[in-house]
Protein backbone atom coordinates (compact mmCIF):
# COMPACT_ATOMS: atom_id res chain seq x y z
CA UNK A 1 0.00 0.00 0.00
CA UNK A 2 2.79 2.37 1.08
CA UNK A 3 4.86 1.46 -1.98
CA UNK A 4 1.84 2.01 -4.16
CA UNK A 5 1.24 5.45 -2.62
CA UNK A 6 4.90 6.46 -3.08
CA UNK A 7 4.86 5.39 -6.72
CA UNK A 8 1.60 7.21 -7.27
CA UNK A 9 3.02 10.40 -5.69
CA UNK A 10 6.14 10.15 -7.85
CA UNK A 11 4.03 9.62 -10.91
CA UNK A 12 1.88 12.60 -9.99
CA UNK A 13 4.94 14.82 -9.56
CA UNK A 14 6.35 13.74 -12.94
CA UNK A 15 3.00 14.23 -14.61
CA UNK A 16 2.62 17.62 -12.98
CA UNK A 17 6.05 18.76 -14.11
CA UNK A 18 5.42 17.53 -17.60
CA UNK A 19 2.06 19.26 -17.66
CA UNK A 20 3.60 22.56 -16.58
CA UNK A 21 6.40 22.29 -19.16
CA UNK A 22 3.93 21.65 -21.94
CA UNK A 23 1.69 24.47 -20.85
CA UNK A 24 4.65 26.85 -20.79
CA UNK A 25 5.65 25.73 -24.26
CA UNK A 26 2.11 26.15 -25.54
CA UNK A 27 1.87 29.59 -23.99
CA UNK A 28 5.16 30.65 -25.48
CA UNK A 29 4.03 29.48 -28.88
CA UNK A 30 0.70 31.26 -28.84
CA UNK A 31 0.91 34.26 -26.61
CA UNK A 32 2.79 37.37 -27.66
CA UNK A 33 5.33 39.05 -25.40
CA UNK A 34 5.91 35.76 -23.62
CA UNK A 35 9.46 36.82 -22.85
CA UNK A 36 7.90 38.95 -20.18
CA UNK A 37 8.55 42.22 -21.93
CA UNK A 38 5.67 44.52 -22.59
CA UNK A 39 4.97 45.77 -26.10
CA UNK A 40 6.15 49.18 -25.01
CA UNK A 41 9.49 47.85 -23.82
CA UNK A 42 10.05 45.99 -27.08
CA UNK A 43 9.16 49.06 -29.12
CA UNK A 44 11.58 51.11 -27.12
CA UNK A 45 14.29 48.53 -27.65
CA UNK A 46 13.68 48.60 -31.38
CA UNK A 47 14.09 52.37 -31.39
CA UNK A 48 17.28 52.23 -29.35
CA UNK A 49 18.87 49.65 -31.63
CA UNK A 50 17.80 51.54 -34.73
CA UNK A 51 19.32 54.75 -33.41
CA UNK A 52 22.49 53.07 -32.18
CA UNK A 53 23.29 50.71 -35.05
CA UNK A 54 20.81 51.52 -37.81
CA UNK A 55 23.27 53.33 -40.06
CA UNK A 56 25.90 50.61 -39.70
CA UNK A 57 23.45 47.86 -40.61
CA UNK A 58 21.97 49.85 -43.48
CA UNK A 59 25.39 50.63 -44.95
CA UNK A 60 26.56 47.04 -44.63
CA UNK A 61 23.38 45.84 -46.33
CA UNK A 62 23.82 48.43 -49.07
CA UNK A 63 27.34 47.20 -49.71
CA UNK A 64 25.80 43.82 -50.60
CA UNK A 65 22.62 44.83 -52.35
CA UNK A 66 23.35 48.26 -53.91
CA UNK A 67 19.76 49.33 -53.49
CA UNK A 68 18.14 51.40 -50.74
CA UNK A 69 14.80 49.56 -50.66
CA UNK A 70 16.46 46.19 -50.32
CA UNK A 71 18.89 47.51 -47.70
CA UNK A 72 16.00 49.00 -45.72
CA UNK A 73 14.14 45.70 -45.74
CA UNK A 74 17.24 43.92 -44.46
CA UNK A 75 17.58 46.50 -41.70
CA UNK A 76 13.97 45.95 -40.71
CA UNK A 77 14.31 42.17 -40.80
CA UNK A 78 17.48 42.35 -38.73
CA UNK A 79 15.68 44.29 -36.04
CA UNK A 80 12.85 41.79 -36.08
CA UNK A 81 15.31 38.95 -35.60
CA UNK A 82 16.79 40.75 -32.61
CA UNK A 83 13.40 41.27 -31.03
CA UNK A 84 12.37 37.67 -31.65
CA UNK A 85 15.52 35.98 -30.45
CA UNK A 86 16.44 38.49 -27.73
CA UNK A 87 20.03 37.28 -27.33
CA UNK A 88 22.09 38.40 -24.36
CA UNK A 89 25.04 40.65 -25.22
CA UNK A 90 28.14 41.33 -23.20
CA UNK A 91 28.46 44.85 -24.55
CA UNK A 92 27.49 47.16 -27.40
CA UNK A 93 30.32 45.89 -29.56
CA UNK A 94 29.09 42.31 -29.23
CA UNK A 95 25.57 43.49 -30.01
CA UNK A 96 26.70 45.26 -33.18
CA UNK A 97 28.70 42.23 -34.38
CA UNK A 98 25.64 40.01 -33.90
CA UNK A 99 23.45 42.43 -35.86
CA UNK A 100 25.94 42.65 -38.72
CA UNK A 101 26.14 38.88 -38.88
CA UNK A 102 22.36 38.57 -39.13
CA UNK A 103 22.29 41.31 -41.77
CA UNK A 104 24.98 39.52 -43.79
CA UNK A 105 22.97 36.28 -43.80
CA UNK A 106 19.80 38.09 -44.80
CA UNK A 107 21.60 39.83 -47.66
CA UNK A 108 23.10 36.58 -48.89
CA UNK A 109 19.69 34.92 -48.87
CA UNK A 110 18.39 37.71 -51.08
CA UNK A 111 21.31 37.49 -53.45
CA UNK A 112 21.10 33.69 -53.62
CA UNK A 113 17.51 33.88 -54.69
CA UNK A 114 18.20 36.94 -56.79
CA UNK A 115 15.56 38.87 -54.89
CA UNK A 116 17.33 42.14 -55.49
CA UNK A 117 16.48 45.25 -57.41
CA UNK A 118 18.82 46.81 -59.89
CA UNK A 119 18.66 50.53 -59.07
CA UNK A 120 21.70 51.88 -57.27
CA UNK A 121 20.71 55.20 -55.77
CA UNK A 122 24.26 55.88 -54.60
CA UNK A 123 25.44 55.92 -58.21
CA UNK A 124 22.92 58.65 -58.97
CA UNK A 125 23.71 60.61 -55.81
CA UNK A 126 27.45 60.67 -56.40
CA UNK A 127 26.91 61.59 -60.04
CA UNK A 128 24.55 64.39 -59.08
CA UNK A 129 27.14 65.74 -56.64
CA UNK A 130 29.76 65.49 -59.40
CA UNK A 131 31.97 63.48 -57.07
CA UNK A 132 33.81 61.66 -59.81
CA UNK A 133 36.55 60.25 -57.62
CA UNK A 134 34.01 58.84 -55.17
CA UNK A 135 31.97 57.38 -58.04
CA UNK A 136 35.14 55.77 -59.31
CA UNK A 137 35.87 54.16 -55.95
CA UNK A 138 32.27 53.03 -55.50
CA UNK A 139 32.17 51.42 -58.94
CA UNK A 140 35.46 49.67 -58.21
CA UNK A 141 34.19 48.26 -54.91
CA UNK A 142 30.84 47.31 -56.46
CA UNK A 143 32.57 45.30 -59.14
CA UNK A 144 34.28 43.06 -56.58
CA UNK A 145 32.88 39.59 -55.98
CA UNK A 146 30.67 39.45 -52.91
CA UNK A 147 33.23 37.60 -50.76
CA UNK A 148 35.77 40.36 -51.26
CA UNK A 149 33.31 43.20 -51.01
CA UNK A 150 32.00 42.22 -47.59
CA UNK A 151 35.44 41.97 -46.00
CA UNK A 152 36.50 45.23 -47.66
CA UNK A 153 33.49 46.96 -46.10
CA UNK A 154 34.01 45.47 -42.65
CA UNK A 155 37.70 46.29 -42.72
CA UNK A 156 37.70 49.75 -44.29
CA UNK A 157 34.42 51.09 -43.00
CA UNK A 158 33.79 49.32 -39.70
CA UNK A 159 37.49 49.09 -38.90
CA UNK A 160 37.32 45.48 -37.74
CA UNK A 161 40.46 43.35 -37.64
CA UNK A 162 40.51 40.12 -39.64
CA UNK A 163 39.73 37.98 -36.59
CA UNK A 164 36.58 39.92 -35.83
CA UNK A 165 35.50 39.88 -39.49
CA UNK A 166 35.92 36.10 -39.43
CA UNK A 167 33.58 35.85 -36.43
CA UNK A 168 30.95 38.04 -38.04
CA UNK A 169 30.99 36.22 -41.36
CA UNK A 170 31.38 32.74 -39.89
CA UNK A 171 34.63 32.06 -41.75
CA UNK A 172 38.12 31.25 -40.65
CA UNK A 173 40.58 34.07 -40.29
CA UNK A 174 42.92 32.80 -43.03
CA UNK A 175 40.08 32.94 -45.54
CA UNK A 176 39.22 36.48 -44.50
CA UNK A 177 42.83 37.61 -44.88
CA UNK A 178 43.00 35.98 -48.28
CA UNK A 179 39.80 37.66 -49.44
CA UNK A 180 40.96 40.98 -48.08
CA UNK A 181 44.27 40.66 -49.91
CA UNK A 182 42.61 39.65 -53.18
CA UNK A 183 40.00 42.35 -52.87
CA UNK A 184 42.69 44.98 -52.43
CA UNK A 185 44.64 43.57 -55.36
CA UNK A 186 41.60 43.86 -57.58
CA UNK A 187 40.95 47.40 -56.38
CA UNK A 188 44.56 48.30 -56.99
CA UNK A 189 44.26 47.08 -60.59
CA UNK A 190 41.20 49.25 -61.13
CA UNK A 191 42.24 52.31 -59.15
CA UNK A 192 45.79 52.17 -60.53
CA UNK A 193 47.64 53.04 -57.32
CA UNK A 194 45.69 56.28 -57.07
CA UNK A 195 44.99 55.80 -53.41
CA UNK A 196 46.85 54.73 -50.33
CA UNK A 197 45.58 51.30 -49.33
CA UNK A 198 46.83 51.23 -45.74
CA UNK A 199 48.42 47.79 -45.85
CA UNK A 200 48.25 46.96 -42.14
CA UNK A 201 45.64 44.32 -41.38
Amino acid at each position, binding site marked *: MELCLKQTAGFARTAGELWKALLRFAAKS*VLPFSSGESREALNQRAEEI*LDRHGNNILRFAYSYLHNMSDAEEVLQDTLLQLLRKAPAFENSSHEKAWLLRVAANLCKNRIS*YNRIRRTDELDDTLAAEEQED*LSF*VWEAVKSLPEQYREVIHLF*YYEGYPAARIAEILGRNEATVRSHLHRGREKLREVLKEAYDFEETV
Partner: protein
Amino acid sequence: MTLRKRYEVIMEHITVTDEMRRRILANIQSPASPRCGRPTVRKMLAAAACLVLILAGAALLPRSFTEETVIPPVQTTPELTECASAGELSGAVGFPVSDLPVLPFEATEVSYLSLWGELAQIQYLGAEEQAVFRKSAGTGDNSGDYNRYETAKEISVRGNTVTLKGNGGYCLAVWSDGTYAYSLSLSFELPAEQWSELVAAVR
Protein backbone atom coordinates in the same frame (compact mmCIF):
# COMPACT_ATOMS: atom_id res chain seq x y z
CA MET B 1 42.91 61.00 -49.34
CA THR B 2 43.13 57.32 -48.50
CA LEU B 3 40.84 54.64 -49.84
CA ARG B 4 39.44 54.18 -46.33
CA LYS B 5 38.52 57.85 -46.09
CA ARG B 6 36.92 57.93 -49.51
CA TYR B 7 34.92 54.80 -48.71
CA GLU B 8 33.76 56.37 -45.46
CA VAL B 9 32.60 59.47 -47.31
CA ILE B 10 30.73 57.27 -49.79
CA MET B 11 29.00 55.35 -46.98
CA GLU B 12 27.95 58.55 -45.26
CA HIS B 13 25.56 59.07 -48.15
CA ILE B 14 23.65 56.01 -46.92
CA THR B 15 21.74 56.96 -43.79
CA VAL B 16 18.59 56.05 -41.94
CA THR B 17 16.42 59.05 -42.73
CA ASP B 18 13.61 60.18 -40.47
CA GLU B 19 11.10 58.84 -42.94
CA MET B 20 12.83 55.45 -43.10
CA ARG B 21 13.01 55.32 -39.32
CA ARG B 22 9.29 56.04 -39.00
CA ARG B 23 8.48 53.44 -41.63
CA ILE B 24 10.59 50.70 -40.04
CA LEU B 25 9.30 51.34 -36.54
CA ALA B 26 5.73 51.46 -37.79
CA ASN B 27 6.18 48.10 -39.52
CA ILE B 28 7.84 46.53 -36.49
CA GLN B 29 5.36 47.92 -34.03
CA SER B 30 2.24 47.23 -36.04
CA PRO B 31 -0.16 44.56 -34.72
CA ALA B 32 0.29 42.67 -37.99
CA SER B 33 4.03 42.36 -37.39
CA PRO B 34 5.07 38.69 -37.11
CA ARG B 35 6.79 39.63 -33.82
CA CYS B 36 3.55 40.27 -31.97
CA GLY B 37 -0.19 40.22 -32.20
CA ARG B 38 -2.03 37.29 -33.69
CA PRO B 39 -0.28 33.98 -33.33
CA THR B 40 0.82 32.45 -36.62
CA VAL B 41 -0.56 29.22 -37.96
CA ARG B 42 2.71 27.58 -37.03
CA LYS B 43 2.37 28.61 -33.42
CA MET B 44 -1.24 27.46 -33.28
CA LEU B 45 -0.19 24.10 -34.64
CA ALA B 46 2.52 23.94 -31.98
CA ALA B 47 -0.07 24.58 -29.30
CA ALA B 48 -2.37 21.94 -30.79
CA ALA B 49 0.53 19.49 -30.83
CA CYS B 50 1.08 20.20 -27.14
CA LEU B 51 -2.53 19.38 -26.40
CA VAL B 52 -2.22 16.08 -28.23
CA LEU B 53 0.92 15.28 -26.28
CA ILE B 54 -0.78 16.08 -23.00
CA LEU B 55 -3.70 13.84 -23.81
CA ALA B 56 -1.43 11.06 -25.04
CA GLY B 57 0.66 11.42 -21.94
CA ALA B 58 -2.38 11.15 -19.73
CA ALA B 59 -3.32 7.92 -21.47
CA LEU B 60 0.20 6.47 -21.30
CA LEU B 61 1.48 7.64 -17.94
CA PRO B 62 0.11 4.78 -15.79
CA ARG B 63 2.29 2.42 -17.87
CA SER B 64 5.34 4.67 -18.03
CA PHE B 65 5.61 6.32 -14.67
CA THR B 66 8.87 4.56 -13.98
CA GLU B 67 10.49 5.93 -17.17
CA GLU B 68 12.16 9.28 -17.49
CA THR B 69 10.80 11.67 -20.08
CA VAL B 70 13.52 13.08 -22.24
CA ILE B 71 12.78 15.95 -24.60
CA PRO B 72 15.42 15.99 -27.33
CA PRO B 73 17.05 19.29 -28.14
CA VAL B 74 15.57 21.12 -31.10
CA GLN B 75 17.96 21.08 -34.01
CA THR B 76 17.70 23.45 -36.92
CA THR B 77 19.37 23.11 -40.29
CA PRO B 78 21.49 26.14 -41.10
CA GLU B 79 20.10 27.98 -44.08
CA LEU B 80 23.41 28.43 -45.92
CA THR B 81 26.22 25.96 -45.41
CA GLU B 82 29.63 26.45 -46.95
CA CYS B 83 31.29 23.22 -48.01
CA ALA B 84 34.90 22.51 -48.88
CA SER B 85 34.33 20.41 -51.99
CA ALA B 86 31.79 19.00 -54.38
CA GLY B 87 31.88 15.77 -52.39
CA GLU B 88 31.04 17.52 -49.15
CA LEU B 89 28.34 19.49 -50.92
CA SER B 90 26.84 16.23 -52.18
CA GLY B 91 26.61 15.04 -48.60
CA ALA B 92 24.98 18.27 -47.49
CA VAL B 93 22.20 18.17 -50.10
CA GLY B 94 21.74 14.42 -50.34
CA PHE B 95 22.37 13.95 -54.05
CA PRO B 96 25.51 13.79 -56.20
CA VAL B 97 27.06 17.07 -57.26
CA SER B 98 30.17 17.36 -59.41
CA ASP B 99 32.41 20.18 -60.45
CA LEU B 100 31.89 21.49 -63.95
CA PRO B 101 34.45 19.77 -66.15
CA VAL B 102 34.29 22.56 -68.74
CA LEU B 103 34.32 26.31 -68.05
CA PRO B 104 34.69 29.14 -70.57
CA PHE B 105 37.34 30.82 -68.40
CA GLU B 106 40.02 29.92 -65.90
CA ALA B 107 38.62 29.79 -62.40
CA THR B 108 40.91 31.07 -59.66
CA GLU B 109 38.46 30.48 -56.85
CA VAL B 110 35.64 28.02 -56.28
CA SER B 111 33.06 28.03 -53.50
CA TYR B 112 30.52 25.37 -52.61
CA LEU B 113 27.27 26.27 -50.91
CA SER B 114 24.28 24.26 -49.71
CA LEU B 115 21.09 26.29 -49.51
CA TRP B 116 18.60 24.91 -47.03
CA GLY B 117 20.03 21.43 -47.61
CA GLU B 118 18.07 21.36 -50.87
CA LEU B 119 19.95 23.40 -53.43
CA ALA B 120 23.59 22.86 -54.36
CA GLN B 121 25.47 25.85 -55.67
CA ILE B 122 29.02 26.00 -57.00
CA GLN B 123 30.41 29.43 -57.78
CA TYR B 124 33.50 29.87 -59.94
CA LEU B 125 35.43 33.12 -59.93
CA GLY B 126 37.98 34.14 -62.53
CA ALA B 127 39.97 37.33 -62.92
CA GLU B 128 36.92 39.17 -64.23
CA GLU B 129 34.39 36.40 -64.81
CA GLN B 130 31.93 34.50 -62.70
CA ALA B 131 29.88 31.35 -63.19
CA VAL B 132 27.19 30.02 -60.86
CA PHE B 133 26.07 26.41 -61.24
CA ARG B 134 23.03 25.09 -59.39
CA LYS B 135 21.50 21.67 -58.99
CA SER B 136 18.40 20.66 -57.07
CA ALA B 137 15.85 17.86 -57.00
CA GLY B 138 12.84 18.38 -59.23
CA THR B 139 12.36 20.03 -62.57
CA GLY B 140 11.67 23.72 -61.91
CA ASP B 141 13.88 26.70 -62.67
CA ASN B 142 16.28 26.97 -59.72
CA SER B 143 18.43 29.78 -61.09
CA GLY B 144 16.80 32.48 -58.99
CA ASP B 145 17.24 34.74 -62.00
CA TYR B 146 14.05 36.67 -62.61
CA ASN B 147 15.54 39.27 -64.92
CA ARG B 148 13.83 39.98 -68.21
CA TYR B 149 15.97 39.06 -71.16
CA GLU B 150 15.58 40.13 -74.75
CA THR B 151 16.42 36.78 -76.26
CA ALA B 152 15.53 33.23 -75.35
CA LYS B 153 16.20 30.03 -77.22
CA GLU B 154 15.67 26.34 -76.64
CA ILE B 155 18.30 23.84 -77.65
CA SER B 156 18.48 20.10 -77.22
CA VAL B 157 21.47 18.67 -75.37
CA ARG B 158 21.72 14.92 -74.74
CA GLY B 159 17.98 14.57 -75.09
CA ASN B 160 17.16 17.38 -72.65
CA THR B 161 15.60 20.72 -73.56
CA VAL B 162 17.80 23.58 -72.43
CA THR B 163 16.44 27.12 -72.24
CA LEU B 164 19.01 29.82 -72.95
CA LYS B 165 18.40 33.46 -72.02
CA GLY B 166 20.30 36.65 -72.68
CA ASN B 167 20.42 39.98 -74.42
CA GLY B 168 21.86 39.20 -77.82
CA GLY B 169 24.04 36.31 -76.70
CA TYR B 170 23.14 34.09 -73.75
CA CYS B 171 24.23 34.27 -70.13
CA LEU B 172 21.85 31.79 -68.52
CA ALA B 173 20.95 28.17 -69.18
CA VAL B 174 18.20 26.26 -67.38
CA TRP B 175 17.32 22.61 -67.88
CA SER B 176 16.18 19.39 -66.25
CA ASP B 177 16.81 15.71 -66.88
CA GLY B 178 13.50 14.76 -65.30
CA THR B 179 15.05 14.06 -61.89
CA TYR B 180 17.16 17.10 -61.17
CA ALA B 181 16.96 20.75 -62.16
CA TYR B 182 20.10 22.53 -63.32
CA SER B 183 21.07 26.08 -64.06
CA LEU B 184 24.26 27.77 -65.11
CA SER B 185 24.62 31.52 -65.19
CA LEU B 186 27.61 33.48 -66.43
CA SER B 187 28.63 37.07 -65.90
CA PHE B 188 29.09 37.39 -69.67
CA GLU B 189 27.31 36.10 -72.79
CA LEU B 190 28.14 33.25 -75.10
CA PRO B 191 26.63 32.02 -78.37
CA ALA B 192 24.27 29.06 -78.30
CA GLU B 193 26.87 26.70 -79.80
CA GLN B 194 29.24 27.19 -76.87
CA TRP B 195 26.41 26.62 -74.43
CA SER B 196 25.77 23.24 -76.02
CA GLU B 197 29.31 22.20 -75.15
CA LEU B 198 29.07 23.51 -71.59
CA VAL B 199 25.75 21.85 -70.82
CA ALA B 200 26.72 18.58 -72.49
CA ALA B 201 29.68 18.29 -70.13
CA VAL B 202 27.59 18.64 -66.96
CA ARG B 203 27.01 15.39 -65.06
